[in-house]
C-alpha cells in the first residue's frame, strides 16, 4: 500500500512514464517525444530521469507499446491515446535498448 505522500509525488512527477492499458486502448502520459512509429509498435520517450541503482545517473526513459493495427487516436499536449489490439507494454532504458 502506497503512502499518500509518495502517491502525490508520483502524480506530480512529469518525467515518470504513466500508462493506462485496456484490451483495446493505451493512454500514455508524460510523453516527451515520439521515437518510433509503426503499425506493430509505438515507442515514446519520457525525457531524462535520475536513476539510483547501481549508481545515480541521468538516463532516458522509453515506453514501447506493441500490438497489431495500432492507431494513434489522439496526440495532444504530451498524451497519446493509442487504439488497436494491444499485446505488450514495455518500459525501456538505453541499456535495455542496446540489449535488444
Amino acid at each position: 500500500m502506497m503512502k499518500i505522500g509518495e502517491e502525490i509525488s508520483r502524480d506530480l512527477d512529469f518525467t515518470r512514464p504513466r500508462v493506462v492499458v485496456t484490451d483495446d486502448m493505451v493512454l500514455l502520459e508524460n510523453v516527451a517525444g515520439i521515437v518510433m512509429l509503426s503499425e506493430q509498435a509505438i515507442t515514446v520517450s519520457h525525457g531524462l530521469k535520475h536513476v539510483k541503482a547501481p549508481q545515480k545517473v541521468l538516463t532516458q526513459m522509453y515506453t514501447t507499446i506493441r500490438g497489431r493495427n495500432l492507431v494513434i487516436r489522439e496526440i495532444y499536449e504530451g498524451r497519446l491515446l493509442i487504439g488497436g489490439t494491444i499485446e505488450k507494454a514495455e518500459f525501456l532504458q538505453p541499456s535495455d535498448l542496446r540489449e535488444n
Partner: protein
Amino acid sequence: MGEPSRRLSFYSHRIFVKIEGFRLDRLLDRAMKAGLELRSVRMKGETELTCWISRADLRKLQKLGKSAYRITVLQQRGPVPGAKSILARPAFVLGVLLAATFVVFQSFFIRSIEVSGYRGIPEEALLACLAEKGIYKGAFRPDIDWEGTEQAIYDAFPQVTWVQLVYRGQKVWLNLSETDHDLYQKEEKERTKRQVYTNIVASHSGYIDTIYPYYGLALAEPGDYVKKGQILITGSIPIQPTTFDEESEGGRIYFVNAEGEVWAKVPYHMTFYQERYHFGEKSSDGKTVADRVEKTEEEAKRRAEQQIRLWTAENLPEKAEIQNKSLKFSRSGNIIEVSVLLEVRQEIGIKQEAAIGETDTDTTDHRPDGTVRKSGQ
C-alpha cells in the same frame, strides 16, 4: 490547455490528410512538441500515414514538414465545408428555402377560432362580429386589429364585461365574460313568477273534525265552524325575532306553499220527491185488485235510500263518509216529499294561490274566530 478554437470537434473545420515521407515519427514528434492536435493517426506503411487535423494546425504542420514531407488533403469536414457543399447544389438550397418560406408564410393565416366563456350570446353572433373585423378562417393575421376587435365586441354586446383575444400560431382564442343580463331578466321573471304562496282553504262549509298542517300555519281547530273559502292553513307565517331589536318590531313574514289535510263534518240538506201511490196493482192470478195503492213507509224509505245513494255517487268525493243521516217524510197530494239531512265527513282543504304583494291584507285580516279571510273571498 490549447486554444478552444484549435480543438478538433464536430463543429470545427477538420481536415483529413495524407502525409508521405521518411521518418514520419520525427514529424509527429515535432508536431506533438509544437502542441498540434492530431487524431486517428494510422500508419500506411513505412512512409505514409493518414490523420485528422484542424485547419489551423495543418498550416503549422506544413511549416514543420517543410519540403521533406508531402501533405495531401483528402477530405474536409465542418461547418464551412458543409456549407460550401450545400451551396454547391443550388436546386437543393432553393427547394429548402421554398419549403421553409411556405411553412412560415402559411403560419400567418388563421386556421381555427375557439370561443369560450359565452353564456347568453350565441357563438354564431360572436364569430360574425369577429368576421366583420377581419378574423375568420383563412384571414391574414398581421392585418388584424386585435384591440379594435376587442372594442367592437364590447360595443356590440353591452353585457360583455371582459374580452381576451389571443392567438398562438394559427389558432385564435376568444375568451369573454358576460353579465347575466338576459339570463338575469329571465331568472327575475321566473323568480317573480314564483313569488306566490298557497293557502289551504275550505271547499265547503262545515265543522272541522281534524286538521293536519304539513306546511303552513293552521288557522282553525277541531270543532270550529268554517265557511266555504275560509283559509284553514295559511302559507304566510309571521316570524317573531328572537332578539330584542326595536327596529324589527313586528317581525317578518315567511311564505310557504301550505300543505295539509283538513277533514270536516259537512251538513247537506236536500229534498227528494217520489210518487205516493202504486198504480194498477194486480193479484197473483193477474187480475186487477185496485187502481192505486199507497206506498208504505218502508217502501218510501227504500226509495229515499236509493235516491240518496245516487246523489252521493254523483256529488260526494270518493273518501267521503256519511256519518249521520236523517229522513223526514211528508205526504201531500200524490207526492211524498223526503227531506234529507246528511252529515258527511270529508276532506275540505283545497289549495289556493295568493300573491305575496297581497300578504299585508291576508295577514292582518284576522277574524275573531281565529281564521283569516283572503281579501276578495
